Structure formats: C-alpha cells, structure tokens
C-alpha cells in the first residue's frame, strides 16, 4: 500500500446556490520521500486537495489514506492532532502572525502541541538556521522580504517534523531569485520520512518533482469532421462539471440547459432549439461545463471541434450557453 492513497476523491461546494465540483473522482498515489507537484490553472482544485490532505476540509466522497489513516474520517480532537503532528502547511500568502517575531512564529505549532517554551525555542532556532534566517530571529514579518517570510513559513511547517508537508503555491509571491531558493528547498525537504506535496501553476517544478499530478488534463485538440449524435427524449448529453472539447449544433429537436442546485434540485436556464448551438465556452476557455444538457425531445445534433465551430460561426463567442 502506498503511503498516500487518494481514491475517487470528490469535493462539492455550494456556490451561490449551485453545486461546484473542483475535485471529481480524483485518484492518486505517492510514496514516502517523494516531491509531488500538483499542476493546474486556478480553480482546478489544487488548494481544495491540499485542504483535504491537511484535514481542513471533509471530502464529499472518496477516501484519503495517509500512513494507513483515513484522513476524511477524522473528527474532533483527532483532526486537531492530525494538523498538529502529521501535517506541516506552507501557505501561499505566508500567513505569518504579524505580531510575532520570526522565531515565535516558528514556535507556534509546538506551543499549540503543548511543547515547553525552551524546547520550542531551541527547535525554532534550529529550523531558522536551516532556512538561513539565523540573523532574522527577532524580526517581525513586516521587516522581512517575501522570500524570507516564505522561508519562515517553511520553518514553521517543519518545526514539529511532520511526515507530510503541504505547500500551496509557495512561489506565487516571489521573484525569480527567491523562487529558485524555495524550489531547491522543497526538493531538499522531500527525503526519507517526509513527503512534500506542492501545488503550483509554475511548471518549473516539474523538472525536480518525483511525481506530477495534472489536475486538469489538456483537452484533446485533435481535429475531426463533425459527428452526428442522436439523443432520445430525456437523455443527458453532458453534465455540469464535465470537461469537453466539443460544441454542439442542434439539427432537429431541442435541448434543455439546466443547473444542479445545492439543494439537489434543478434550475432550467434555457431551451435551445434547432439551428442553434451550445456548449462553446467550456472548450474555448478550457473550463468545466457550467451546466448540464439534456434532450427535451428526440434530438439530432452535430458535435464540432472548436476550430470547425469557429469557421462555421465566425461571430462567436456570443452568450454563454452551458459552457
């Protein structure tokens, strides 16, 4: 069994009354000592996955097992213990406590775990030396550069020696010189006894990662002739949250475009009739479908690639229809 196993992980949110599903049946595995890079654009579920791994969010369905423990099933004190002992988190915005010095910020996880002040201080000094900040022990966050703050955040994530370190866009607010230092540090941290999971949209990390997880697979851009599709009344063409690379033109019949509400009900957005098209926004912008499509009656459609669609309808893009 792998040290980290994610099986069919699905996470749903209520967004303004509609269901958003940033993670949909995700499965992955990773081993101890690995540096795992989660790649993908904003909104693809990287941070959601990290939050689930940290025990900050409970998945809608699926399991996350780390060192044999199902993280999603933890509750109450067990979750707090998981956060205190198993996980170290490096946040995108550093999230250092503004009122505490670098040293005290690093001591916080140990203080939360009830470790004595002297021992916590000794450990913080050790970690800050490791990230080359021995000279900045008593500086407040505002007195440190972005790169220095991120290194303090990394020291804080490591101070209790967790076997799982999660880093959310750790290079997002840094210049290229600082990025290099942080990436090398991430690589160095992933050794026996510690797994490091880094979410990023910066693909430079792929060269040093042991495993790369692309949360949004690139849509196929292969060109082909329009394909004819026939649907029976009530048959679903695609569902909200699906990814797709085809735009549909109705030759005969009609299609209902509807959204799944958070209360599990449906909201009919529009009914598209013969001669009209729908589903163009998702493929053009590489986003998941924002609504579902279902035949209102026996319907015949043409499924077009984006390039063919734009040739046939040069005045696109008009209004979003179940993108």
């Amino acid at each position: 069994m792998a040290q980290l196993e994610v099986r069919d992980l699905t996470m749903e949110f209520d967004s303004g009354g509609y269901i958003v599903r940033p993670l949909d049946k995700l499965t992955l595995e990773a081993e101890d000592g690995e540096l795992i890079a989660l790649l993908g654009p904003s909104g693809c579920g990287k941070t959601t996955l990290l939050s689930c791994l940290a025990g900050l969010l409970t998945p809608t369905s699926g399991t996350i097992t780390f060192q044999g423990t199902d993280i999603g099933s933890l509750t109450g004190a067990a979750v707090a213990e998981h956060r205190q002992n198993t996980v170290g988190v490096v946040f995108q915005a550093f999230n250092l406590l503004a009122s505490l010095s670098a040293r005290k910020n690093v001591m916080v996880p140990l203080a939360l775990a009830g470790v004595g002040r002297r021992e916590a201080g000794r450990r913080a000094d050790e970690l800050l030396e490791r990230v080359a900040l021995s000279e900045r022990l008593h500086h407040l966050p505002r007195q440190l550069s972005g790169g220095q703050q991120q290194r303090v955040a990394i020291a804080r994530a490591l101070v209790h020696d967790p076997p799982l370190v999660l880093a959310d866009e750790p290079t997002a607010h840094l210049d290229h010189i600082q990025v290099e230092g942080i990436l090398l540090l991430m690589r160095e941290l992933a050794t026996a006894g510690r797994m490091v999971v880094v979410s990023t949209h910066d693909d430079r990390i792929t060269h040093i990662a042991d495993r790369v997880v692309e949360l949004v697979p690139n849509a196929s851009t292969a060109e082909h002739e329009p394909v004819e599709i026939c649907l029976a009344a009530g048959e679903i063409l695609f569902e909200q949250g699906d990814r797709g690379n085809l735009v549909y033109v109705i030759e005969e019949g009609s299609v209902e475009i509807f959204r799944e509400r958070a209360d599990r009900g449906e909201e009919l957005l529009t009914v598209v009739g013969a001669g009209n098209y729908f589903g163009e926004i998702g493929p053009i912008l590489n986003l998941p479908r924002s609504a579902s499509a279902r035949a209102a009656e026996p319907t015949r459609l043409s499924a077009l690639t984006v390039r063919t669609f734009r040739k046939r309808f040069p005045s696109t893009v008009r209004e979003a229809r179940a993108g």
Partner: protein
Amino acid sequence: MGDAGVFGITVSDLLFRKRQFLIAIGGAALVFAMTLLLAGLAAGFSVEINATVQSFGADAWVVANASSARVASLTPIVGSAAGRVAASPGVRHASPVIIVPQTASVAGVPPVSVNVIGLPIGGLGTNQATQGTDVRGSGEAVVDATMGLGIGKAFSVGPRTFTVVGVTSNRTLLGGQPNVYVTLGDARTTAFRGADLISAVLVTGIPTALPPGLTVRSNQAIEESSLQQMSAGISSINNSKVFMAAIAAIIVASLVYVTALERSRDFAVLKALGASSATLFGGLALQSSIVALVAALLATVLAQFMTGVFQQPVSIPSSAYLILPLVAIGIGLLASLIALRRAVSADPAQAFAG
C-alpha cells in the same frame, strides 16, 4: 494548546496593537474611575451622617414619639423636656439640641444651604472645632470647612449675624451641606423665632422610662433613618454605577471585537495549525481581561485625582477597590463573548486563500 503558548501570542498581540489597546484602556479606566467615585458618593451619604451623629458623643437620642428620627427633620419638642429627660431613670446626662436646615447669607456670594445645629455651651457635642475655638457665646459659630469661611468671617442666618470662631471638617449632612454650630439660643431664634422648642435631647446612659410623648432612639437608628431620607439619591447613584459598568463593557467589547475582525486570518491560520475554538476563545478572554484589569488599576489612581469634581463628600469604600478588579474580569469575559463567534466561525481552510 499550552497555556504559555496562548499567553505568549496574546501578550505579543497586545503589544503589537498597543496604540488601540491603550486608547481602550484609557476610556475604560475613566469609566471605571467614575464608577469608583459613584461608589464613593453613595458611601459618602452614610459616612457624613455617621460622622455628625457620632460627633455629639451621645449614647442615644430622645425624640418626639411621632418623629421620623431623621437627624435633619426631627419633630420639635418643648425645651423643658430636656430637664424632665435628665431626671429620667438610666440617664446620666441630658443635653438639648436643635438641628434645622436653613439658608446662610455670606456677603458677595450666593446664599448657602447649611444645617444650623444649636447646642448649649458645655453641652454634649459642643467640642467640634479643629481650628480656632468652640462656640463660647451668642453670635459665634463653628462652621464646616466646605462653607469656605475662615475664622473671623461673618455670615447671617435669618435675623442673626454670626462670626466664625472655629472651623471643623467632615461635618456635613444631606449630601455635603455644611453644619454650622451655634448656641442653643441663637438656633432657637433662627429656626423657631425664639419659641421654646428643641429638636431632640442627647443623652448619655440609656433611659429606662421617659415622660409621655417622648421616645428613645439609638445612634444607629438615627443614622439608618437619616440615610433612608437619601435613599432615592443613593439608588440613582447605584443605577448609574451599573450604567458605567455597561459602558466600560461596551468599550472593551468594541476593542476586542474589532481586534477579532482584524485577526480573522490569524484565527484561520491558528486553526489550520491545530488550535481549537476553545483555545482561540481563551486567548480572546485573556486579552480582554488584561485590558479590563489594567483599566481598573489605572482607575484606582485616576479616582484619587477626581474626587474634587464633586461638592458632595466622596468616601470610596475599600470594598469598591476589591470588587472593581472582579467586575473588570467579568466585563473582560463578557466582552470576549462578543468576539467568540469570530473565533468559532473562523474556517481553517480560509488560511489557504491567497
């Protein structure tokens, strides 16, 4: 979380936001000081009555049966009653007294309300002066220092003009109204137009039988009855103390709430690092209690400089100094409850927001 951890983060945050905390401490301290002064005012009524009543050196008072026993509004009795009381069994010494609130006129200043107290020369309670001499004859007066008249100064009450021969202190009634000690005859002239009336007979020893129409009241009964006369005022002052405590709570709560709003991200981060809602609430409660306690300590100092604001006697009881820190902690805890929702509702996943 270890207590040291909560304490350390709390103290660091206090120091980090010291300017806004100091403003709140200053505001709350002023309100707490007012609370102490109000407690002093309420206690002052009792203290002044006690000082005046005890200064006569009597064991008991013989008053008219129908009298209210309020020291400044006793029902007059005939002057000859003093002789008959003196002859009553159990009485070692009897001395008549007249106590009547009146208006004194001093040249160049508005009329002043005073309590004219007439005593026979050499009788009980005549030894009042702390400066100058006691009253030795008609036309002389010993006045309380709050009247603002030095020795040799003149004032008049009704048709009589008096010269100050002695000054006393802490001798007031009815909320800081100065006592004026004169001879029994002068008091009779100003209060009763010369009629042979007195307010009461002061006695040493306790009479076991009295002439008809008279009754004996202990010093304590006189004090309690007199204090009852001020009950409406005391009640208002005590209600004001509650308002003051509420204002202090609002000041501290506002500060703690605003701080909690500013620290929403900190709370999310601390939760993400393993802190519980109870731990965060503990930090808030500690923070607001420290603010309220420091304000209470500052208030005890401020109150000493603010007593002069009031005309009335202010006698802050030591119990008020002991209770104030407890009230402050209570207010601190109450204030932190206002911010509790911020701590409890902090979503640790928000720490990931960029």
